[in-house]
């Protein structure tokens, strides 16, 4: 009815009526809006947002910004020695793994060891005490054993990633020092290397190239023939129990085409590293 009336009025009159009513509505709305805005201002006035705060103690500021930030990871393997890892993604992966471990389930009996040789390490922080951990039968963090059925698997994935930092020509060369017995073996002949030869061998190994490219590795493996000799590294030179024969902890099979295959006897099934380089110190002895 009302609509009909409006439609029957002349156009300018209709518009005037509409304009008047909307102005009136706005006038009535104004006080309500003002009250609401005032209420919101009172509510938010106590909050620190959008305000500049000054902290006088610079040391405290530094502490706040650095708290619980893992900086480096030191790994220690009884044979390969220690290595400091600084790549953030590796350090964080290890930190995330250790901090997400559940408490050890009582009576939990997993399948197999995580490793056959203990791997220990320390995560160093910019400003908080370091975390010490070890991985062997289980994962122990600061003296407490953690883990459930999935921990061994996760630890295994982590170790697989971390071990690339231990298996390098530089770390291998560091094992060839004056305290370690190094034996050059050709057929049935064994020669204990002298300090000078060891020094030369150390330099040659550290300058070897690690082979990761698949095509290059294929080419070298297919053209390797039979090994020319072996270099045996005895990092643990104590006699075995009951006078048992002693084996090297690491050996390197040396091939005529420059390929060196490194085996970590205690913990690996198969080879651990493929290197390419010239070992003149060894070949001069063979001649």
């Amino acid at each position: 009815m009302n609509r009909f009336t409006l439609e029957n009025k002349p156009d300018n009159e209709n518009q005037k009526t509409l304009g008047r009513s909307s102005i009136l509505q706005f006038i009535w709305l104004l006080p309500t809006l003002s009250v609401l805005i005032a209420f919101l201002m009172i509510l938010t006035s106590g909050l620190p947002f959008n305000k500049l705060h000054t902290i006088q103690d610079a040391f405290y500021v530094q502490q706040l910004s650095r708290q619980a930030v893992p900086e480096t990871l030191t790994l220690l393997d009884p044979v390969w020695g220690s290595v400091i890892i600084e790549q953030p993604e590796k350090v964080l992966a290890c930190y995330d793994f250790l901090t997400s471990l559940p408490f050890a389930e009582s009576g939990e009996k997993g399948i197999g060891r995580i490793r056959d040789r203990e791997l220990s390490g320390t995560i160093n922080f910019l400003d908080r005490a370091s975390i010490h951990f070890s991985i062997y039968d289980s994962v122990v963090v600061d003296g407490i054993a953690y883990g459930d059925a999935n921990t061994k698997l996760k630890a295994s994935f982590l170790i697989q990633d971390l071990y690339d930092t231990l298996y390098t020509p530089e770390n291998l060369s560091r094992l060839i020092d004056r305290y370690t017995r190094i034996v050059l073996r050709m057929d049935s002949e064994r020669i204990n290397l002298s300090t000078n030869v060891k020094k030369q061998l150390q330099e040659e190994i550290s300058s070897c190239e690690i082979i990761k490219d698949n095509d290059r590795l294929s080419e070298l493996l297919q053209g390797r023939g039979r090994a020319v000799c072996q270099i045996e590294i005895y990092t643990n030179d104590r006699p075995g129990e009951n006078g048992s024969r002693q084996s090297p902890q690491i050996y390197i099979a040396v091939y005529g085409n420059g390929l060196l295959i490194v085996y970590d006897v205690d913990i690996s099934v198969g080879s651990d590293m493929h290197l390419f380089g010239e070992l003149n110190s060894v070949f001069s002895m063979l001649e």
Partner: protein
Amino acid sequence: MVRNIKKPLIIVIVLVIVGGIICFFWMRNNSSENALTDNTVNNHDDLSGMQLNILGSYHEDMVKRLAQMFEDETGCNVFYMRLPTGLGVAKLVTEKDNPTFNVYIGGTVDAHESLKHQNILVPYRSPVEKEIPKEYVDSDGVWKAQYIETLSIGVNTERWEKEFYGNEMPDTLEDLLDPKFKGEIVTPDPFTSGTGYTFLTSVLQLMGTEEGWKYMDKFNDQVGQYTASGYPASEKVGLGEYLICVNFLSDQLIVSNSGYPLKSTVYEGAGWSMCPVSIVAGSENNIVAQRFIDFCLSKKALDALVELGNCVAVRDDCIIPQGNNKLSELNINRNYDPIKAAADKEDILKKFNDMIK
């Protein structure tokens, strides 16, 4: 006048909005269809961002190399874990309801057979499997062999010359029972190692159950050490810790080709096994797992395994392992049945456990 203009204007605006909405939904639908098509095509070339978890019972370097090659080829993230066959099977059985792994590679075929019957491994028909002889592919479509392994007796020649100079080296199963070798034999544990189980079951099949168990009882007295995996037995003999090993020929060849004094003899009636790959239940429709199985059967993957492991690949177009034969030239004991070995596994291991107590 204004009213007259306003009405058509509103109609035009409404039409534009409705048209815009229709266009928006049509384009969106069309682009998602395109994306789906692109994804289907890309699945075969680019799996970047996807993840594959491998459980492997090959040597660690072999598992690692396959993982790296596949990662490089497809761009997906590959994680792997290496366990000896027995422990690998136990791991998969434990995780049956909540599997971590998508594929199981390596170990011996009896392990894959056993897991197949427990529905832990599932069928997948790979387009590449027609390129390998059908006797090396499971008729149920679950496992596909990558290579063949033959048992062998390995002797440290350097120690032999010093300690047994003038004597004949052992080259039969009976020779291994000679009292002078007591404590000097190293062999893998049948509980944890597929190699160890292959030796045990092949003796039982060769000699018959009764005679076979009598032999194993005497053989057990000769053993100085059981190893968890097959390969370390040859390493220990190569390095001179033990005089004799009984394990797979390819493992012995790795050590002898590295220059260590190890002589291998494939004895009469030696057992053998296939080393297959399979998809773990729960991943049957996983495109990454399927692609990995296809990759594992390719020439380049098998060549990579032969290069590292000296094994005999099931494809005849693969490279020839150093000191070993091609598949077509391999002289294996055809009377030995690895599938029967799988069927009898539980009972045999139980009896072996009672025997070594």
